[in-house]
C-alpha cells in the first residue's frame, strides 16, 4: 500500500517523461490521471480509520547528517487532499484543449503540477513539503505566461513575484523553526516535531509563526497578499486555473494545519486578533470588490480569494469543529472553484468574451452548460446539499464556540454569504439569462467530454454535501481532539 502512495507521485512524472519521449500527450496524461484517481480512491478507502495516525509510510535517507529524509506517509487529511488533487487533475486534463504551441509541454506542465501537489501533501518531511510545492509552482507560472489570455505576461510576472517571495518567506520561517529547536533534537520530520511540541521541548517564538503566516498566507491569497490571484486566474488557461485555485492554493492552508496548528498553539492564540482582522478583510473587502467586477473570470477569481476567508476563520477558531469545517471547506471549495473555472473556459471558448455587458441569454441554446454552471454557482455560495454548506456551517459553529472575540468576524462571515449570493447570482443571470443577445443566438451547448469532466467534480461535492461524515471522519484523524 505504501508503494501505492509513492506511485501517485511517480505516475504523473513517468507519464510526462513518456510525453517528452513522444507519446500522445492527451491520451497518456489522461490515462495516468485516471489511474492515479483510482489509486487515491484505493488509498482513501484502504486507510485504517480506527488505527488512525500516519499510514503507508516509506522513507529514503537523503542527508542523514542534517536529518533530511524523504519521508512519505498519509493520514486522513492527506488522503482527502490527495483525492481532491487527483479528481481535479482528471477533470483539468479532460477539459484541456489541443493547443497550437507546445502541446506536449502543456500536458507535461499539468502533470508536474499534479505530481508536485500530491508530493507536497504526502510529505512528512518539512523540507520536502516545501520542495514539492515549488515543483508545482514553476509549471504554473510557465502555463500562465505561455498559454494565458489577455495581459498574460504581466499576470504571470506578478504571480511569480508574489508567490516566489511568499514561498521564500516561508522557507526562511521553516529554517528559523529548525534552528529554534534545541540542538540534539533538531529534526524536520513532522511526526517528531509534533512530539517535541507535546513534550514541551519546542518553544518557537511568535515571530516564526508570523513568517509562516505571511509565507503560507500569500500562497493562499490571504488579504492583503491576495492581489496576484484574480489576475492570474483570469489570464491562466482553464486547466491551470483549476489546478491552482482548486488544489495547489490549498497547500498553504494544509501547511498551516500541519505545521502552525500543532507547533505554535501559544503564538496562534496570541496573534489570533491579527488573523481575524485579515479574515474580515478577506471576506468583507474582497467581497465588495468581487461585487464590482465586470467580467466572469475576474468574479470567480476574486470569489476564490474571498472564500479563503471562511477557511481561515475555521482555522482561527482553534477548535475541533472549526478546523474540521475548514478541512471540509478546503475539499469543497477546491472542487467547486475548479468546476467554475472549467465552465468559465467553456463559455470563453464559445463566445470569445466574458464581459457581462456583452453576454446574455446563453441558456436558451446551451441549457446543459447553464445547468452545470448553476450547480457550481449554488455550491460556491453555500446552498445546502453541497459540501460547501456543511463546511461553512461547521466553521460558523466552531467560530461561535471560540468565544466573544469571534462575534464580529462571524457576523461579517454570515453577511459574506449574502455578498457571495449577490455576485454569483448576478453573474449567473448576466451570462445565461435575460434577453438573448443576437450574437449568441446559436451558441453551442457544452460538449459531452467537458460535461462529464464537470460532473466528476460536482458529484463528490453533492455526496459530501449530503454525507459530510465521509470527509469529516477522514480529516478528523489528523486533528487534535
Amino acid at each position, binding site marked *: 500500500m505504501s508503494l501505492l502512495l509513492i506511485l501517485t507521485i511517480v505516475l504523473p512524472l513517468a507519464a510526462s517523461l513518456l510525453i*517528452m519521449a513522444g507519446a500522445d500527450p492527451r491520451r497518456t496524461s489522461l490515462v495516468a490521471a485516471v489511474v492515479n484517481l483510482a489509486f487515491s480512491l484505493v488509498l482513501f478507502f484502504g486507510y485504517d480509520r480506527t488505527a488512525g495516525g500516519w499510514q503507508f509510510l516509506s522513507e529514503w*535517507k*537523503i*542527508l*542523514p*547528517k*542534517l536529518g533530511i529524509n524523504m519521508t512519505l506517509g498519509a493520514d486522513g487529511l492527506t488522503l482527502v487532499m490527495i483525492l481532491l488533487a487527483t479528481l481535479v487533475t482528471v477533470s483539468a486534463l479532460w477539459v484541456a484543449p489541443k493547443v497550437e*504551441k*507546445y502541446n*506536449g*509541454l502543456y500536458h507535461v506542465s499539468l502533470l508536474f503540477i499534479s505530481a508536485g501537489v500530491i508530493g507536497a501533501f504526502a510529505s512528512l518531511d518539512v*523540507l520536502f513539503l*516545501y*520542495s*514539492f510545492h*515549488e*515543483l508545482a509552482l*514553476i509549471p504554473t*507560472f*510557465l502555463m500562465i*505566461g*505561455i498559454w494565458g489570455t489577455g495581459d*498574460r*505576461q504581466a499576470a*504571470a*510576472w506578478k504571480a*511569480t*513575484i508574489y508567490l*516566489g*517571495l511568499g514561498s*521564500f518567506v516561508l*522557507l*526562511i520561517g521553516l*529554517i528559523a523553526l529548525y*534552528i529554534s529547536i534545541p540542538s540534539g533534537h533538531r529534526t524536520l520530520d513532522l511526526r517528531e516535531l509534533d512530539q517535541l511540541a507535546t513534550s514541551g521541548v519546542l518553544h518557537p517564538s511568535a515571530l516564526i509563526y508570523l513568517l509562516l503566516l505571511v509565507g503560507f498566507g500569500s500562497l493562499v491569497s490571504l488579504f492583503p497578499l491576495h492581489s496576484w490571484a484574480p489576475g492570474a486566474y483570469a489570464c491562466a488557461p482553464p486547466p491551470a486555473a483549476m489546478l491552482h485555485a482548486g488544489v495547489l492554493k490549498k497547500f498553504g492552508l494544509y501547511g498551516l494545519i500541519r505545521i502552525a496548528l500543532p507547533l505554535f498553539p501559544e503564538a496562534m492564540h496570541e496573534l489570533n486578533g491579527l488573523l481575524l482582522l485579515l479574515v474580515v478583510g478577506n471576506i468583507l473587502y474582497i467581497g465588495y470588490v468581487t461585487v464590482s467586477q465586470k467580467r466572469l473570470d475576474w468574479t470567480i477569481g476574486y470569489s476564490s480569494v474571498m472564500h479563503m476567508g471562511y477557511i481561515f476563520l475555521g482555522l482561527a477558531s482553534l477548535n475541533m469543529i472549526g478546523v474540521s469545517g475548514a478541512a471540509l471547506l478546503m475539499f469543497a471549495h477546491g472542487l467547486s472553484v475548479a468546476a467554475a473555472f472549467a465552465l468559465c473556459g467553456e463559455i470563453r471558448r464559445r463566445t470569445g468574451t466574458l464581459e457581462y455587458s456583452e453576454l446574455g441569454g446563453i441558456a436558451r441554446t446551451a441549457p446543459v452548460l447553464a445547468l452545470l454552471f448553476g450547480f457550481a454557482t449554488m455550491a460556491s455560495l453555500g446552498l445546502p446539499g453541497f459540501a460547501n454548506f456543511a463546511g461553512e456551517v461547521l466553521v460558523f459553529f466552531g467560530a461561535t464556540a471560540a468565544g466573544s472575540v469571534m462575534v464580529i468576524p462571524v457576523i461579517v462571515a454570515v453577511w459574506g454569504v449574502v455578498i457571495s449570493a449577490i455576485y454569483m447570482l448576478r453573474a449567473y443571470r448576466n451570462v445565461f439569462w435575460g434577453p438573448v443577445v443576437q450574437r449568441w443566438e446559436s451558441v453551442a451547448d457544452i460538449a459531452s467530454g467537458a460535461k462529464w469532466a464537470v460532473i466528476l467534480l460536482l458529484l463528490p461535492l453533492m455526496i459530501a454535501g449530503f454525507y459530510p461524515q465521509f470527509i469529516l471522519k477522514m480529516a478528523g484523524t489528523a486533528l487534535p481532539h
Partner: protein
Amino acid sequence: MNTLYLEIAVVVLGIILLMVESYSASANKARLAWIGAIGLFGVLLLSFIPQHAPAPGSPAAAFITSDLLSVFFVRLILAATIVFLLTVPSFFPALRISLPAEREGGGLGEFAILPIFVCAGLMWMVSAVDFIMIFVSLELATITLYILATYLRQNTASLESGTKFLILGALSTGFIVYGISWLFGTTGTTNLLALPSAIAALPEAAVTPLLFGIGMILVALSFKISAFPFQFWVPDVYQGAPTPVTSYLSVASKAAGFVVLIRLLGALWAIPAVSHQIHAVITLLAALTLIFGNFAAIPQTNMKRLLGYSSVAHAGYLLMAVASLSSKMAVPAIGFYFAGYLAMTMLSFVVLQVVSEATGGDEISRFNGLGRRSPLLAGAMLLAAASLAGIPFTAGFIGKLLVFEVALKQGHYGLVALGCVTVAAGFYYYFKVIRAMYWQQPAEETSIAVPGALRFLIAVLGAAIIAFGVYPAPILAALR
C-alpha cells in the same frame, strides 16, 4: 599510486597531442579533442585507484599533498576539462572565421590541446601545499588561459577581453608574489603546513607585516575567485572570451582559486594572532560579493554578462561557507556546491554556445521563443536556470541549503539573512531567461540543430543536476 603520476600523465598526453598535431597532415582537428577527452577520462578513472601522499620528509611532500580535498577537486577539474574538450569541435566553425586562412585548419588544433595544460596546472594547484608550487602551477594555468581567451583574433571583443585578462592577471600575480615575499620575510617559510607553528613563534611586532602579506595574497585570490571588489574583470572577459573558455574559466579556474583559499585560511583560521582579522575580512568579502553579484546581474541583457555576474554571485555563496570554516561541514558543502555548479554552469554555457552560433549573438533576446525552436535546448536551460536559482530537486538547491546550514550553525545570521534577499534577486534574473524562452515570440521559426556531442553533454549534465539534487550523499561522502 603516487599522486604526481596523474598530473604527469596529463602533461604527457598534452605533449603527445601537440606532436601529433604538428606532424599529422590530417585536417580533421576535431579528432584531437576527442582523443584528449578520452585520455583525460582515462586519467579520471586512474584517480579512483587509491593514492598515497608523498612520504613525509621526501622532497615531494614539501610541495604536494594528496588529501580528500585535493583528490575531489582534481576529479572536478578533470571533469570540467573533459566537458570543455567535448564542446570544442562544435566551436570550430566560429573559430575558423577569426583565424588566418593560410593553412586549412591552422590554429584549431591548439585550441583543443592547450586546455590540457591548463588542466595540469590547476590539478597541481589544488594539490599544492607550498606557495612556490601554488605560484608556479597558477602561472602555468593562467598564461595558457590568456591565449585561450584571446583566441578569436579577428574579434575585437575577444582581444579586449584577453588584454584585460592579461593585465589584471599580471597585476594579481604581482600581488601574490609580493604577498608571498612578505609572508616569507616574516615567518621564514612558504610552506602552508609549516605556517601555523611559524606564526605561533612570531614576536608581537611581526604580526602587522604578516597580516599585510596575507592581505596581499587574499587580494590576488579574490581576483581568481572573482570576489568583490576584484570582480570587475569578470563581465568583460566573460563576454569577450570564446564561450567554451568562458565556461571553463568560471568553473575550473575558480575552483582552484577556492581550494588555495581554503588551504591558506585553513592554516590560519585557528591562530589567535590573526584569526580575528581574517574572519572579519572574509565575512565582509562574502557579504559584498553576494550583494554586488546578485544586484548587478539584474539589469543585464547579455547572457554571457549575466552568467558572469551570476558567477560572482555564486562566489559569494561559496565565501559564506568559507567564512564558516570552523565547521566540519564547510569543506564538504563547498565541494558539493562546486560539483553542482559545474553541472549547471557548464550546461547553460553549452546551450548558450549553440544558441549564439545559430542566432549570431549572446543577448538574452536571442533566446526568445527557444522553447519552440529547440525544446531540448530550452528544457536544458530551464533546468540549469532552475538549479542556478536554487529550486528544489536540483543540485543548486542542496548546495545553497548546505552552505546556509553551515553559516547558520556558525552564527552568521546576518550573512544568511542577506543570502535570502540575494536568492530572491537571483530568482528574478534567472527567471528572465526562462521568460524569454517560453513567453516571447521567436524572431524566426526555424528549428535549431544540436550537434551530437553537445546533445550527449546536455543529457549528462542535466542528469547530474537532478541526481545531485535528489541524492547528494555520495558527493558529500567523498569529502568526509
